């Protein structure tokens, strides 16, 4: 696949991911009048604000209390336009909508998936900027940025687990399944308490995350690895309910594929 095909696939996957997030957010916004009504961009009302702070606060109050749904519909329209036509303006507007929607929830609604969505948008924005100036280096940098951040997302998460004794012996995974506020299926809570099983599963996660960059570059053709990672995210959805992660990370896989097929000369 050449760079243009990689970008086209990334654009499709990102647009689908944003459409899924947006339709969910419309349903969620119907409940926001009763639940989680107040935006979290400020903790307490501060009486002695300066003029501009008050203006900014007024703008966001208006946006989130009156025009939040309008913001989501705008995001849907732009992502449909982006699905048909890739350019820097559409992806910049998408990034702006994404940041504004997340700002209502103190910067992030859904944690990691919002981070990865922002990363893919930023990478594509850099690509289209480079394309308009006909700079191959900048266009490639946009895709490298997505690929490297995607590698880091697995590698750093793996290393921090590897460093902890409770992850290496399976206790951490067991405690997360038993006591965290994710709704984990009861059958899985039962089997995760078998020490050998929790230890084995922890090591699969640690190895998959830590060895991912090495396998990616050594093997070159990374399709099987990307399929394994995709299955890993699907399993996480069935165990923890985090469906947005599947599509957010999927949008970064074309860039990973592109990165793994480069011949780097060090």
């Amino acid at each position: 696949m050449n760079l243009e095909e990689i970008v086209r696939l990334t654009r499709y996957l990102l647009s689908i991911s944003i459409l899924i997030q947006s339709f969910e957010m419309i349903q969620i916004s119907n409940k926001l009048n009763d639940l989680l009504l107040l935006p979290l961009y400020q903790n307490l009302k501060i009486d002695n604000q300066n003029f501009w702070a008050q203006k900014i606060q007024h703008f966001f109050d208006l946006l989130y209390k009156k025009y939040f749904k309008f913001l989501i519909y705008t995001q849907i329209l732009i992502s449909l336009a982006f699905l048909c036509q890739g350019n820097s303006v559409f992806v910049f507007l998408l990034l702006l909508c994404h940041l504004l929607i997340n700002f209502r929830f103190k910067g992030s609604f859904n944690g990691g998936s919002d981070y990865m969505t922002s990363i893919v948008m930023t990478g594509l924005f850099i690509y289209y900027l480079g394309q308009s100036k006909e700079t191959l280096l900048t266009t490639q940098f946009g895709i490298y940025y997505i690929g490297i951040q995607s590698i880091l997302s697995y590698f750093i998460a793996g290393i921090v687990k590897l460093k902890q004794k409770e992850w290496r012996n399976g206790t951490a995974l067991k405690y997360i399944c038993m006591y965290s506020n994710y709704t984990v299926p009861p059958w899985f809570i039962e089997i995760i308490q078998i020490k050998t099983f929790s230890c084995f599963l922890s090591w699969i996660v640690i190895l998959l995350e830590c060895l991912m960059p090495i396998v990616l570059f050594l093997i070159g053709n990374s399709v099987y690895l990307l399929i394994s990672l995709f299955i890993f995210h699907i399993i996480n959805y069935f165990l923890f309910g985090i469906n947005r992660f599947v599509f957010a990370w999927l949008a970064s896989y074309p860039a990973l594929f592109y990165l793994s097929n480069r011949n780097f000369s060090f």
Partner: protein
Amino acid sequence: MIFQIILPLFRTLLPSWRFFERLTPFPKIYYKIIEAKDQQIISNEWQLLNPNNSKKRTIGKLFYNPEENLILAFWTQVEHLLNDISSLNSTDSHRIYELNSYINVLSVIKNEVKLKFPSCISFDFKIEIIHFDLSSNQVMPQNLQVLYSSGVSFNES
């Protein structure tokens, strides 16, 4: 001041990717009904708030799962509330009940209690944090009460 307000807008642009770096304590919320039209539901026992939709995860929900994502957002709000409480200085400590995160968390608790016990008039709730003693490999968590709110009434605006 302006910088402080605006900064979280750009939060998702700078990821750390340190998922589960530490086994952070998990918050749990309990409530008990103190006043109700139906006297039988009044209890001295704390009940665990468990706002899960308990529906099966299907392939369809992989593409559209708003209920579960709202619940996940609620638990993130609880974490924000705990952070907000710990960052309040001593002169502001009485303002916990004015925190946006407190008001949001309370709105979800009220909704859950009302759904489960429609005749409830008022209730108490508390947030506990489950800590783990990893050094001694203790499986049993230790509970620590971090917030107690009494007499939450449905008549309040």
